[in-house]
């Protein structure tokens, strides 16, 4: 279906080779997963397939890519629009029209299809992706998962042979992510579509992909079955990580596989998680808190108390009101009823120095905080703005990570490094509370591990941390308390272990495998005393 022959790619003004002499073939109706660290070149690899690189975006390409018998050297992306459907990382950025139905029909319109054919095709994909209830909606009012489904529908309407998805679930809550991935699985199996998909959260996809393309970032690319690649690569989902640490002979890919392997194990002693002891020092109190936006209730009568030193994770579907609550606590959002008191003050009254000494807020898009030309300048500006001793912010940055080059432009950093810089900016003023709004968006496992160790350290130092997140594995690593919001109400609130093991949607992989233990993370498993009586050890 797709043939790469001797493909090399570099970007002008760059020393790094993205791809070096790559030759491989994707068969018809294969499901290929593309993995690699952020910035390794996964998106570049995918954009090559329909020729957006080099026809649209700069890039020096040698070799040839043939898709369904057509070479991208001669054809422009538009001329391949009937063969390849492509869904970008952020579907909202690629929407041309404003209505669901118009968006789906757009590619048909530009290709000059007859109106009656168009009606039929649009109807078909609407049925296929279950968009009946959304067809008249404005695209901007849809939730992230719905937008992703519309983007997939718009790509499928041309009956393409290849579908390219660039991190389709990175912004989605676990339930919406499962929905989208179930659709992808169905497309491969029912329609025989060839799918090429990049994804960071391997635990969601690895058990149903055929082959994995591992983009190393130094020009080398490794291709193989999931088992082969997992053996070689450091990029591992929790299950594979646990299996490797326990030296299992075969590498399991799904909860089911590890569960079957571990069925014969004897676990002698229960490993107990360190119990979190909360202080009685009340730092934030939220009373009778309600928000309605344009007549629609977002949150109703929420009552909460956070004590200092707590590490709280807010979970719930996209649009449940997590961000609204965090923004209200940090004083950015004011149109609510009820009251919020932070350290005996109303957050909306806090400004300037008082604000930054109480609350450090890392927004969903960390780069909103940046406006310097280099990392060093950025740090200096923080010192000047807040009248700190010069060098305070850089010192904070170095205490979190010394991998970040000070002469780089903040926007040229990788996603993980951007997040670390943003955290150091807000921590420089020593706030009592650190608030993070979806910190793991677009982070690879490596960056996430670094984030976890940073946050664990901060928690030990007594910083109170509140974060909204979809990432159950991250929550399992270090949160002390989990809140779940649904339909505007607080539906559960309790210690991490109780909330995460209570429902399968929120359970981390290890809790699913060892469901009768109190285990959440890989560390819990490897620190336990296990007797492998089976043949596997």
């Amino acid at each position, binding site marked *: 279906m797709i043939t790469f022959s001797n493909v090399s790619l570099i970007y002008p003004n760059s020393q790094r080779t993205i791809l070096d002499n790559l030759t491989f073939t994707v068969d018809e109706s294969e499901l290929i997963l593309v993995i690699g660290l952020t910035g390794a070149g996964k998106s570049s690899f995918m*954009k090559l397939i*329909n020729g*957006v690189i080099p*026809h*649209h*975006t700069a890039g020096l390409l040698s070799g040839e890519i043939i898709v369904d018998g057509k070479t991208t050297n001669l054809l*422009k*992306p*538009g*001329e*391949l*629009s*009937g063969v*390849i459907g*492509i869904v*970008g990382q*952020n579907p909202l*950025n*690629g*929407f*041309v*029209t*404003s209505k669901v*139905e*118009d968006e789906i*029909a757009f*590619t*048909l*319109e*530009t*290709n*000059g299809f*007859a*109106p009656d054919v*168009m*009606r039929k095709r*649009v109807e078909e994909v609407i049925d296929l992706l279950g968009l009946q209830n959304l067809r008249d909606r*404005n*695209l901007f009012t849809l939730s992230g998962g719905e937008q992703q489904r519309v983007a997939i529908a*718009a790509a499928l309407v041309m009956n393409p042979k290849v579908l390219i998805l660039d991190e389709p679930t990175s912004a989605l809550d676990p339930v919406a992510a499962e929905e989208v991935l179930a659709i992808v699985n169905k497309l491969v199996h029912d329609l025989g579509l060839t799918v090429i998909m990049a994804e960071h959260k391997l635990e969601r996809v690895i058990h149903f992909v055929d082959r994995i393309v591992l983009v190393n970032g130094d020009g080398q690319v490794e291709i193989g079955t999931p088992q082969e690649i997992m053996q070689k690569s450091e990029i591992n989902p929790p299950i594979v990580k646990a299996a490797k640490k326990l030296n299992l002979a075969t590498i399991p890919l799904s909860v089911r596989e590890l569960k079957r392997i571990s069925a014969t194990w004897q676990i002698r002693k229960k490993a107990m998680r360190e119990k979190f002891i909360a202080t009685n020092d009340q730092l934030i109190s939220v009373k009778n808190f309600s928000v309605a936006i344009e007549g629609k209730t977002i949150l109703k009568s929420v009552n909460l108390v956070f004590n200092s030193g707590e590490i709280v994770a807010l979970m719930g579907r996209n649009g449940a009101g997590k961000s609204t609550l965090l*923004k209200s606590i940090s004083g*950015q959002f004011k149109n609510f009823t009820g009251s919020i008191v932070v350290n005996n003050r109303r957050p909306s009254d806090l*400004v*300037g*120095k008082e*604000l*930054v000494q109480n609350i*450090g*807020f890392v*927004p969903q*898009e960390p*780069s*909103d*905080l*940046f*406006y310097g030309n280099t990392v060093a300048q950025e740090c200096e500006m*923080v010192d000047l*703005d807040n009248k700190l001793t010069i060098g305070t912010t850089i010192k904070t940055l170095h205490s979190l990570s010394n991998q970040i080059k000070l002469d780089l432009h903040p926007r040229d950093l990788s996603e993980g490094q951007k997040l670390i810089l943003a955290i150091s900016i*807000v921590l420089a*003023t020593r706030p009592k509370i650190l608030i993070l709004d979806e910190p793991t968006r677009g982070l690879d496992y490596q960056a996430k591990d670094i984030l976890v160790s940073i946050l664990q350290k901060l928690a030990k130092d007594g910083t109170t941390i509140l974060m909204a997140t979809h990432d159950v594995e991250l929550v399992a690593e270090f949160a002390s308390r989990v809140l779940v919001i649904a339909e505007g109400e607080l539906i559960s609130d309790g210690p991490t272990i109780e909330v995460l093991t209570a429902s399968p949607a929120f359970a981390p992989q290890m809790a699913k495998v060892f469901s009768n233990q109190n285990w959440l993370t890989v560390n819990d498993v490897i620190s336990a005393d296990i007797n492998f009586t089976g043949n596997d050890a």
Partner: protein
Amino acid sequence: MNSLSWWLWSILLAAAAIRAGTLCIGFLLILIFTLVVAKHKKSDEWGNPFKLTMQLALAATVVRLFFAILIGTPLPGKTLISLPQLELPNWLAGIRVGGDVTRERLISVINESSKFAVVLIAFGAASALSSPVQVIKLISGRIYLFGVTLIIAVSVLPQIVNSFNRVQSARRMRGLTKLRLNNFRNIITPVLEESIERAIDLSAAMESRGFGYSKNPTRYRPEKFTLSDLLIFTSSIYLLIFTPVLINSFGALLATTLFGIFALSPLFLIRKQVVLA
């Protein structure tokens, strides 16, 4: 009604008002646009373009009035107020700062600004009555780069407003309170960087979806050019042609009334036709 008809209707009416050149007709037209927009408003995805142009028009009028009173050549006529005049060197003869403000000068400025305001408001009304992206698709399917540029410009606008707000509140969380001119750059840099990113993404998406490749793009829900569209189109053209006659042969009041009837009547006719159909 066809999106294009709304644009033609507003453009032709604005042109007619400029030809008429009287304040009464200018104000009447602004009133008509307001009423029609209130009733037939269509697009909601980019906020309220009509309100925005209204505010712009008002601001432009205020600025012009301010400068007319303070600077410029005085028109001879009845002096309303007399401001202290600034002594200027000889080589600046013909320029005046302060001094007498005449009634003639004020009237001419108000007339001029009303024309400008009508054009702005007509644009806002047309954008509110029809989705701008629809019209761009209609007229620019074949002029590829022009179409891409226009669509990107139109769709990046709401995103700019959104990221401006986000960056503004992120600034606050960094402990910055006052927005001064020298740190205005701090807001502009992230906002512009994000818009450029979005523009590149959008143009890549349009390219991948074959925009501009087919010689004959089709429409999913074609907007038919019906009899009522024709009616509006022709009546507006007649209005444009006969406006000077209207002004010259009748008194101001009667001319304005007739103009209003002429401008609005096709809209009533359309409604009747819809009922009949």
